[in-house]
């Protein structure tokens, strides 16, 4: 009888340990995804602040430009969507006629991002992710500042764990990969705002 009780106790203990470790593992993974961007040095912090300042400036300009675009509701027709997108794309490109590569991804920001990408894509399990990005069908995309991303091209999936570590963007902007290049893109008009060549290790 005593022996049986001991057996039941041991069995319960094993089950509890397995359950506990799986919950802890789940919690750990989730926290990793929700982690704040990793700032490793004051220089990195300054680089991110400089990037965020550039982004804020862009959003201010964009808001001004958007006032002239036709209004878009959440119950729009394809024609209204097309008119809005075309007008926004044209206005944004006209508003930054001298836009150059590196305005947002300045050397210190680019350095921080490159290091972040290198860390994120380390390890065997990340090889699959790299391959996935390179497999994205981006034929027709001209990687050029102030040019629109080709509508017919596929969009690369951006890893959640990476997005958590990069400088956070407002809803109007997106990071995107085209081969080894990392782009900063206007979400609605798809105009390429800036890009970093050979960003992916």
């Amino acid at each position, binding site marked *: 009888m005593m022996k049986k009780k001991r057996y039941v106790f041991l069995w319960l203990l094993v089950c509890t340990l397995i359950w506990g470790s799986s919950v802890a593992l*789940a*919690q750990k*993974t*989730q926290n990793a*995804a*929700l982690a704040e961007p990793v700032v490793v040095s004051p220089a990195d912090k300054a680089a991110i602040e400089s990037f965020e300042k550039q982004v804020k400036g862009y959003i201010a300009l964009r808001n001004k430009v958007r006032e002239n675009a036709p209004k*878009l*509701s*959440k*119950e*729009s*027709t*394809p*024609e*209204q*969507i*097309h008119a*809005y*997108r075309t007008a926004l794309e044209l206005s944004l490109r006209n508003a930054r006629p001298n836009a150059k590569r590196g305005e947002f991804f300045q050397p210190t920001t680019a350095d921080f991002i490159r290091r972040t990408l290198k860390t994120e894509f380390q390890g065997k*399990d990340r090889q*699959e*992710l790299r391959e*996935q990005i390179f497999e*994205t069908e981006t034929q027709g995309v001209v990687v050029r500042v102030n040019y629109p991303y080709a*509508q*017919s091209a*596929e*969009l*690369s*999936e*951006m*890893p*959640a*764990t990476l*997005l*958590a570590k990069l400088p*956070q*963007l407002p809803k109007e902007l*997106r990071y995107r990969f085209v081969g080894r290049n990392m782009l900063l893109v206007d*979400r*609605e008009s*798809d105009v390429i705002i800036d890009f970093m060549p050979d960003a992916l290790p």
Partner: protein
Amino acid sequence: MRRTHIHHFLFAFLISAIVFIAAPAQTQNGNSTAAAKSHASAPLKLTLPMKDGSVKFAVIGDTGSGTEQQREVGDMMIKYHSLFPFEFVLMMGDNLYGGEAPADFEKKFSAPYKALLDQKVKFYATLGNHDQALQVNYTNFNMDGKEYYKFKKGNIAFYSLNSNYMETKQVKWLEDELGRETAEWKVMFFHHPPYSSAKKHGSDGQLREVVEPIFLKYGVNVVLSGHDHVYERIKPQKGIYYFVSGAGGKLRTGDIDGRSGLTEKSYDRDMHFMLFEVAGNEMYFQAISRTGETIDSGVITRK
């Protein structure tokens, strides 16, 4: 003489082996049915119970090719709608391939599903890797202007996520919403499959790493996705039921890797759509091919 016979036998064996290996995966559990190129329709057969007051909906994925085959899937859906009047359709993303001019919306969405739209069937879309952000504003996709959103029907909460860009804000929104969710059933739908046996893309491990712990923590019951152009019902993973339904307008014949160990049932020989019926603690499902054959069916019981 004997050596020649042995050579003939070995040659025949080799040819048979090649034919066997090269053949597209059959549906599991011995139910191999429709042929991809057959245009003949099978007699309609509903396996769903049609209970009073149940929530009835359909699922399609990777539809926006604008091809004749996409239209044929749409035609089959309207035929089944007459038997099973589903109220709405969930779209698994890649709603419009290769361009989003007004003519594309017409050719790749409004025309193939015109009969359903005319009968006031609502479509709820999610974004795929071929979809532009402004689709969220399209009235017939009912996305409320958002890349991720939720809505309720009966005792079910449906969450549409943007798996192409799972940023921190979205993850936090998901946690917050699930944290206060009161619906009995929690159904997720998004483009990239956390589990898949397809050879082209397969399981999206990095996405799963982020979303699966949340699904487990908050008791998500069912996850629907597309991206791989096949049908697959995954063996329950940690108590969650996963479906891949990504062949509503594109097909990748023979793409299922039967050795993945994930498959409960699969089908990669023709396009398909799915029907669901939720009544109390039971969710009934039926997967139907472009030609109208039932390729899978069953029931999930909520614990």
